[in-house]
């Protein structure tokens, strides 16, 4: 098997942080938008879905990484899907056993984690090429980044749509909930708003780098 230079790189904080910020699956890569829009009508649901995705990411990345030399590339996608579906089924049972309310709230979207492209993307582009420790660190970073994005969307939708955060009321009884925010259109509005914020932050960073380069050049 050919060893790529990137495979030899040691595990650094960047291995973890890249998935959280620089390559955030929702706000930067625009992956896994289906659960990001569908189940984020409350912060608790967002954390539940994020947690479930982290467990599936860790389990599937570990197994794919362990079996990477045994899986021929001709059957790799089929193998990855079976591995991911296994961990999704385990998480489905676990959430059902832990909290009936959360299980009912997340509904079919737990089973739909199987087709979340964030997970298949990690298996194909990272876990199948790296050792288990590095794959786990990377998967954890991406999972935390995904949960962070879901929490950002879910918190804003719950605050505006229900006047609560994690179920605790924030405003007085006179507050009129902005119901559209907990409905599907609200998911699009809030995700669009967060994408604007991230695009603005990225542009500002690029502008600063450019200004620094120009200042150095002038000096």
């Amino acid at each position: 098997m050919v060893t790529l230079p990137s495979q030899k790189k040691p595990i650094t904080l960047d291995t973890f942080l890249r998935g959280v910020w620089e390559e955030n699956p929702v706000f930067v890569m625009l992956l896994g938008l289906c659960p990001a829009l569908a189940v984020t009508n409350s912060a608790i649901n967002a954390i539940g879905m994020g947690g479930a995705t982290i467990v599936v990411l860790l389990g599937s990345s570990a197994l794919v990484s362990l079996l990477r030399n045994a899986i021929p590339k001709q059957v790799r996608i089929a193998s990855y899907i079976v591995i991911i579906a296994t961990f999704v089924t385990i998480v489905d049972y676990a959430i059902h056993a832990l909290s009936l309310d959360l299980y009912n709230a997340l509904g079919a979207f737990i089973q739909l984690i199987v087709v979340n492209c964030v997970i298949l993307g990690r298996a194909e582009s990272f876990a199948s090429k790296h050792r288990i420790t590095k794959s786990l660190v990377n998967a954890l970073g991406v999972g935390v980044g995904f949960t962070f994005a879901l929490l950002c969307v879910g918190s804003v939708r719950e605050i505006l749509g229900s006047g609560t955060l994690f179920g605790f009321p924030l405003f007085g009884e006179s507050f009129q909930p902005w119901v559209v925010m907990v409905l599907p259109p609200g998911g699009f509005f809030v995700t669009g708003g967060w994408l604007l914020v991230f695009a603005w932050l990225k542009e500002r960073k690029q502008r600063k780098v450019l200004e620094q380069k120009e200042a150095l050049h002038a000096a």
Partner: protein
Amino acid sequence: MTSEANLSAAQAPIPPMPSPVALIRTLGLIAMIAGLLVVLAYQLTDPIIKEKELLALEEAVFRVIPGIDEKTATRVSYVLSADGLKRLDDKSAADANLFAVYDSSGKLVGLAMQGAAQGYADVVHTLFAYDPKCQCIDGLTILKSTDTPGFGDKKTVEGNAKFMANFKDLAVKVTADKSGIAHPVETVKHGTKTEPWQVDAMSGATFSSRGIGNGLRAITDQLVPLIQQHLSELESIPKTEVSN
């Protein structure tokens, strides 16, 4: 340099295609690992899930029937059909279609029955309290609903005092020969309720209201005449052996 690299890459030997047996063996190995993990997870979680579902159902039964002292009350699960009344043990409570709650002296406090019908997004699962004395529905709780948040979900429905008032003294009287319901439950458009057996739909959530009303109609049509026929057996806590 780049063209040299491309040339050497093009000349690199193509890895041989694995044999079909090797591919099947790999997939078989992965499927076996997957099967083992799934079965292990199922074995570990299934008893916990069943216990939690039973607890949730028990809580819902105690919540929906008014005037219960939870500390002293006893819940009994039954299957009621044309073949008769059969008591179930706690392990089989999920198969029950009728729940009775008795006070500390063994006297019947109230009955509860589960309804299910298509709502807006999916089937709405409900639990109704039935008072056999007044032959009326005396409470509603939503067991499971995936209808639109803010319109037809559990929190919104149970928080809608006007809609919930429909399920207090809602008439489900049986005919004189106890063979059927005199006036089956009917869901009507918001603000058009005129009869005591009608359910006034929620404004903006007509499909969810119909789901709840249709579930109630189906279960009352089926069970209420049978309850009235077996009322003497239900009135005091049974001392007979339970069946699995």
